[in-house]
């Protein structure tokens, strides 16, 4: 008789207690109400089930490998950080550095008109999106975030430049938390750059964005962690009526990294576009999930995600389009293309459609393919060496997606993609 299945090993979860949460709140500059919210989140965290590997969302990635190993209250400035300071985005309305264990460092531009941008608590949940990220990670971040900022953009504001947030994974357990609340008929751009991190670093990050009626928001999240860093980043965005949202992401760094981007089209006539690029190599494992949830009529969404996997690397994608029964006359489109640069590289693409009414137009496409040998032969017949030909083809594959990125974000992505293409050209990737 077969044995009964062994009980599933619960992955080690870092323990939380009130003393720790109080210390984290104090160090991060979280204001007095912060601890109450953290304690409530702790209850949710402890009740949250470990994500099931059976579900598509976690089929390819082990959540235990992304969780922090243990949590301590880091305080004070990290050691020498000068080398990690990425250049600030030209013309930024605000430049903000988030270091674990420190209050945010905020530099506002002189061009920023008074009252357009205010700093609010990152911890507050009122007004944050209905759409939850993965519960375990969301609750952990909410309880134990150790660096963060909340920003509010006033009704009718037009920020003179992007808000640039450099999120430093400078502690072994880095838990950044961002919140952006954009009022009605406003325009804002948030560029979130996830930097630093070394061996054994673990990041659990969450960003919540609320876009008021008639507003236009562009949000970029570019992850360029150092080698050895694992982590989970999630973005939840809620778009109000006639709001227009562009979310772009780049997943480049770290060892094992998952990014979840969820956008709720909550208001009638809202539009969302998600544009993403990933380029993984070596033993990297990149995992991207997107959700577009249509809750209102006449909403439209598009997703364009391109992934390149070289050497032993693996890129996985799950993309959900969910159209609720009341959301008539919606349009949704999802495209995911994957390019494999070696026999050992892998990519997975799982599109999921959940459509609860018939008056919608919805389509998706996914491709996974190696570089076309006929393209390489054509380029070789013009004198291009193998590496040079491959790097041209890869650059070309990414090009029309990169072209959709706002200039500053493209520069940021290219700072990472450029050297990788050069490595391919030299034959070392």
């Amino acid at each position, binding site marked *: 008789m077969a044995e009964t299945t062994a009980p599933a090993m619960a992955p080690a979860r870092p323990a939380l207690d009130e003393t720790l949460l109080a210390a984290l709140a104090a160090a991060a500059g979280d204001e007095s109400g912060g601890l109450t919210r953290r304690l409530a989140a702790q209850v949710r965290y402890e009740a949250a089930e470990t994500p099931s590997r059976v579900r598509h969302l976690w089929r390819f990635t082990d959540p235990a490998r992304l969780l922090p190993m243990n949590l301590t209250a880091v305080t004070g400035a990290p050691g020498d950080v000068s080398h990690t300071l990425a250049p600030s985005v030209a013309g930024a309305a605000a430049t903000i550095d988030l270091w674990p264990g420190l209050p945010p460092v905020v530099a506002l531009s002189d061009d920023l008109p008074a009252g357009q941008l205010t700093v609010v608590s990152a911890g507050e949940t009122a007004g944050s999106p209905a759409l939850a990220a993965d519960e375990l990670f969301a609750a952990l971040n909410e309880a134990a975030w150790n660096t963060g900022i909340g920003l509010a953009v006033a009704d009718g504001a037009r920020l003179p430049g992007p808000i640039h947030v450099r999120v430093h994974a400078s502690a072994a357990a880095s838990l950044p938390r961002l919140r952006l609340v954009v009022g009605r008929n406003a325009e804002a751009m948030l560029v979130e750059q996830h930097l630093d991190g070394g061996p054994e670093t673990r990041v659990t990050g969450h960003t919540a964005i609320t876009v008021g009626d008639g507003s236009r928001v562009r949000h970029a999240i570019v992850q360029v962690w150092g080698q050895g860093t694992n982590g989970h980043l999630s973005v939840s965005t809620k778009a109000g009526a006639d709001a227009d949202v562009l979310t772009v992401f780049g997943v480049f760094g770290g060892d094992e990294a998952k990014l979840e981007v969820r956008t709720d089209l909550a208001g009638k006539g809202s539009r969302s576009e998600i544009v993403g690029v990933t380029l993984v190599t070596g033993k990297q494992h990149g995992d991207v999930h997107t959700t577009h949830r249509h809750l209102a009529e006449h909403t439209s969404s598009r997703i364009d995600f391109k992934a390149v996997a070289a050497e032993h690397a693996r890129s996985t994608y799950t993309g959900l389009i969910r159209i609720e029964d009341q959301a008539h006359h919606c349009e949704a489109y999802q495209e995911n293309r994957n390019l494999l640069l070696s026999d050992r590289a892998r990519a997975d693409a799982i599109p999921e459609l959940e459509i609860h009414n018939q008056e919608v137009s919805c389509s998706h496409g996914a491709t996974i393919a190696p570089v*076309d*040998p*006929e*393209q390489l*032969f*054509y*380029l*070789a*017949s*013009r*004198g*291009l*060496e*193998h590496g*040079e*030909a491959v790097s*041209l*083809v890869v*650059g*070309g*594959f*990414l*090009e*029309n997606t990169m072209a959709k990125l706002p200039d500053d974000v493209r520069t940021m992505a290219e700072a990472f993609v450029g050297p990788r293409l050069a490595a391919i050209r030299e034959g070392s990737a």
Partner: protein
Amino acid sequence: MSDALLNPANPANVFACRNLHVFVKDGDQEKEIVRGVDLTVQRGQKHALMGPNGSGKSTLAAALMGHPSYRVEGEIWLNGERVDALEPHERARRGMFLSFQYPVAVPGVTVANFLRASLAARRGTEIPVRAFRQELNEAFATMGIDPSFITRYLNDGFSGGEKKKLEILQMLLLKPAFSLLDETDSGLDIDALKVVSDGINQASGPDNGLLLVTHYQRILNHVQPDVVHVFMSGRLVRTGGMELVTALEERGYDWLTDEAAVAEGSRT
């Protein structure tokens, strides 16, 4: 031809192949597509190759350029040097060129970037931007291609004729020693055929050579080959001059099939 000129190592020969066989994978087996070809192109010569569909002309051309999916036996010579062990890009850098019957698209790579990289590879040195622009403008003008094509993606969404013009534009820029032109005239309208032929003639001179694969007399009237070969079932079955082209136009290939069969019969 004198014995010295039959020597593939003779620098008067820009190209030669000897006893060339080309095999493709066919399930577990191999299929022989090119079945023993000997060809010598002297510097300054233009050769034409005509043959029925499926006879192996494109296979021959691609194999000479070094296409990785073929297994090749025999010798390939370029400028008096063996090149059959070289990678395709090395053959290209030494001056071999293939104008594709079906040029592939490379989306996202602009014509300008591609041409600049090709030119640098062929010349072994980076080309200064301004000099490159000037050369490019001249070549575009010669080929009657709108300059806006330099920012288009390589062959992406190009019409058949536009692709063929860009192939010859590359021949003009890269100045190959020996060009394989695989049906560069197919699908061209009358004006485009003239432009393409003029381009080929402009790129040809006393120091280089070419092998032009075609089904039609029209381009040969423009290009005026010195030698015409008929290629059937993987072999050269007849070599002559323009009179051979006229005979093919009138009689098709069947009479040569019979002769080839007779020749083959007599050999065994």
